[in-house]
């Protein structure tokens, strides 16, 4: 067996440099074939999603904008341990912890909570490592199903607790569902 005939991958093919006949080199037949293929596409269903009016259906595990969760009684889960910030490969998360005062038990589940919790959406790569790192089930990316909107200023992409924390009504609704 000579080297020319060995094909280790089994995909070796002889390149065909056959000379075209006069009829073929007019390209007419090939062009007509091509035209028939494209004209069929004129009548096929269009795949475009007209974005602001129609939205693509997102998968159940789609990672979009983060949500800081509340528990059944509407208390924030986050204890500002900082594990998410450590896990974050893009260093998008910053937070400042604070101690829970007496009388705030209905707001925060444990004695420590995040006074400031900010995610820079320009840095975030939506990998979901913060979600994996969180010991308190406080941060989720799969919950909102919202894509982070565009903005014209860099500052507008730093999302604070006002945008991240789960709305209270949603927490109450969740707890109601659990009871029933």
């Amino acid at each position, binding site marked *: 067996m000579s080297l020319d005939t060995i094909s280790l991958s089994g995909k070796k093919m002889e390149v065909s440099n056959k000379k075209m006949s006069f009829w073929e080199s007019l*390209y007419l037949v090939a062009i007509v074939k091509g035209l028939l*293929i494209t*004209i069929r596409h004129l009548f096929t269903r*269009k795949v*475009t999603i007209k974005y602001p009016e129609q939205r693509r259906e997102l998968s159940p595990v789609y990672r979009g904008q983060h949500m800081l969760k509340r528990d059944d009684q509407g208390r924030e889960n986050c204890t500002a341990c900082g594990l998410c910030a450590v896990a974050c490969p893009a260093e998008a998360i910053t937070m400042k912890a604070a101690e829970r005062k007496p009388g705030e038990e209905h707001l925060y589940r444990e004695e420590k909570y995040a006074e400031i919790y900010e995610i820079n959406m320009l840095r975030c790569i939506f990998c979901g490592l913060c979600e994996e790192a969180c010991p308190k089930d406080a941060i989720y990316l799969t919950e909102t199903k919202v894509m982070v909107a565009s903005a014209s200023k860099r500052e507008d992409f730093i999302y604070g607790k006002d945008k991240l924390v789960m709305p209270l009504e949603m927490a109450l609704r969740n707890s109601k569902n659990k009871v029933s």
Partner: protein
Amino acid sequence: MESTVIIEKGIFIVAIFAITMIMAMYSTWAERKVAAWLQDRIGPNRAGPLGLLQPLADGLKLFSKEEFIPDTRNKFLFLAGPAISMSVALMTSAVIPWGDKLHIAGRDVILQATDIDVALLYIFGVLSVGVYGIMIGGWASNNKFSLMSAMRAGSQMISYEVAMGLAVIALVMMSGTLSLREIAAQQSGMNWNVFYQPVGFIIFLVCSFAETNRTPFDLAECEAELIGGYHTEYSSMKMGFYLFAEYASMFISSTILAVLYFGAYNYPGIEWAVENWGVNIANSIGMVVLFVKICFFIFFYMWVRWTIPRFRYDQLMNLGWKMLIPIAIANIVITGIVILLADKFL
């Protein structure tokens, strides 16, 4: 010349100019739509209903761009380039018969700007001036890519003009006249030239793709190799003029195709319509029919553009010199023999 004739021709010329401009404008819209449909997309649909205001938005955008003139030897030629392209594209429409005639206020109004008896020669003359717009623009840009593109366009257009002329000679042998009006009149009913000259038609069609610099022969604007081609250095509305001229010449060359080979304004049963409905209605329908034919050819141009990739330059030259010209000459010989035999025996 009577003043009524002058007024009549004046109105007609303005109307043709307006129609050409509107067709060119909406060709840009149609091109985007057809491109989108052939690629399973929707196309422009935001500017106005169905995106119909898109050409206006494009024009507005081009007008608001910076007017940049490079430091070139000859600014006059730089400015003249797009103007020549545009005026050449418009000049051809002067001799095209848009319809037979109308009967208005006791006079016969011929639906043609001017009926010269060498209209076909005139068209070829004007078409070959078209290459100057590109050559001058490319040269005056003081940019080697522009110049190369202009050279390509120039040699391409000159090569394909030969085959185009030879294809038309067979047609002229058959019809025995160079006047577009008579050629159109001879094709009354379904006696369209395409049935008598199919080979000539195909050669003419291929060549008109090359003459209008459309894909698959748009080597002058080959982005991968030549940036933007001859209009690399052009900006703002001068750039717009070049693009607009391309669409205007596409409209005109569709018209020539329809007039020469697809029976111009004729449709089956035109004589019957003239007898029963009167000259005005029958010939108005004829004008509409001509426009339908033109729109089909414009669609065909776009259809081909979004189907076939660009030819390589040597393929282009091979096709022009080694294929089309011999076939066109053979076509002439065969046409001549057939005409001779038909005269003798029929």
